[in-house]
């Protein structure tokens, strides 16, 4: 859908819903929120709902960064220590690479 064509209240409502939805373990939703509403929030001339949209975009960005950090840490730990964890490592693994320790 084209953001140009919908009224501001609906934009705000949409942004808000995307923001709230992201709390269900959905950092991707927050990413979409940030990218989609970025222009609306920061690059458009001011309108009534803009400050709120801005705040939602910022909060989504913060949430996204937190999730990215958490996931990166976890993935790094897992990839590095998987072989050493033995059984637990296998239990956690969905695919186990062949031919390595």
């Amino acid at each position, binding site marked *: 859908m*084209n953001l140009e064509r919908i009224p501001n209240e609906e934009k705000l409502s949409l942004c808000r819903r995307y923001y709230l939805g992201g709390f269900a373990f959905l950092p991707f939703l927050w990413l979409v929120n940030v990218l989609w509403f970025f222009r609306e929030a920061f690059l458009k001339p001011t309108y009534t709902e803009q400050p709120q949209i801005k705040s939602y975009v910022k909060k989504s960005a913060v949430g996204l960064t937190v999730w990215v950090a958490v996931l990166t840490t976890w993935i790094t730990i897992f990839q590095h220590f998987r072989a050493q964890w033995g059984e637990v490592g296998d239990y956690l693994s969905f695919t186990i690479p062949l031919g390595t320790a």
Partner: protein
Amino acid sequence: MNTSDSEEDSYNERSALVQCESPTIPSYNQDHDVSLPQQTDTKRRRPVSSGLDEPGPVERERASTPDGEEEELTLKYGAKHVIMLFIPVTLCMVVVVATIKSVSFYTEKSSQRLIYTPFEEDPNSVGQRLLNSFLNTIVMISVIVFMTIILVVLYKYRCYKVIHGWLILSSLMLLFWFSFMYLGEVFKTYNVAMDYPTLVMIIWNFGVVGMICIHWKGPLRLQQAYLIVISALMALIFIKYLPEWSAWVILGAISIYDLIAVLCPKGPLRMLVETAQERNEPIFPALIYSSAMVWMVGMADSSNPGSADGRLRNEGGARAQEEEESEDDVAHGGRRRYSAEEDLEEDRGVKLGLGDFIFYSVLVGKAAATGGDWNTTLACFVAILIGLCLTLLLLAIFKKALPALPISITFGLVFYFSTDNLVRPFMDSLASHQYYI
């Protein structure tokens, strides 16, 4: 993979569902027909539809432009939209071919078959194999016909809840289960370790955002990307689970069915299109890829509020039933707001059903999987695009719902078999004799 019958039911129903949507590019035509009454802008050039006879500014404009210019404008209008369809079709095919070439899972023959193709193809006897593939095709096509008729009946009797539930179930399966399988195979192919928590996060995010974008509201590009991805996933499933010869026969049979269903007066798809047009509703937008925004403004004098309600839409994606009602609200709002202006920039979308994507990709994917080399694949790819081009041309001329499968699939099949059996040995022997032409 151990598939249960119900899963196969769902996704095959979906493919049936999709396929029955696929042949028509009705909304393209609808957009044609539909936009004309609202046209108030003389700067905008639009092809004229002979079907509509709404009075208004359109008539005056029509009279003023010479016929030759109209014809030329019709075609010019079409070229941009041809390109707008080429890109997603190409992307879908690229994804399928890339997967086929790299992930061997989808080309391994499994002993499991879909229940829709119950006859086993015996590689030893040609006659038996041919017979079985025809029987498989008959089973598959009858399943599809049956599903289509059910769909039309449900639509006629306004059982929208059932249809939406069905659509949601099948997108759920595609977005979660098939992508899970696909990811698993890709990781195995590239020998990457993946843990369950990360995987669950990835699939969960992919699936939920996909459901939101397709069935609710989301950015247009993301929605298009999701539709392409699910078409590719579906095509890969077909490539894996349809037996060799049955697949080709099924492709041919589906094109013929498509032709019949869309063009015959009593064809189910035609009835679907006509019912939808009567009711001024878009046809199952969740199953149709649309490539651009459509914004059609109500007529300045609102002299035909009925048509304007249906026309004014925030196009570009999945419309659930509640969405249509909200569109009407937007329509009312839009009319009030824009009634004094010329109509805005209209970038009319082109729509193609997802089933078309799927079957085009199945053809090219099978050519990549079983054909000799890249020649065959590329030839099929080009053939399909040429077919699509011609179909769109015909659409611009005839301005009614047209099946998108027959021409492309025919070209594709012809090119596949001829390239595989004629061109490839020719090129091989040229190369072996180091003779370059």
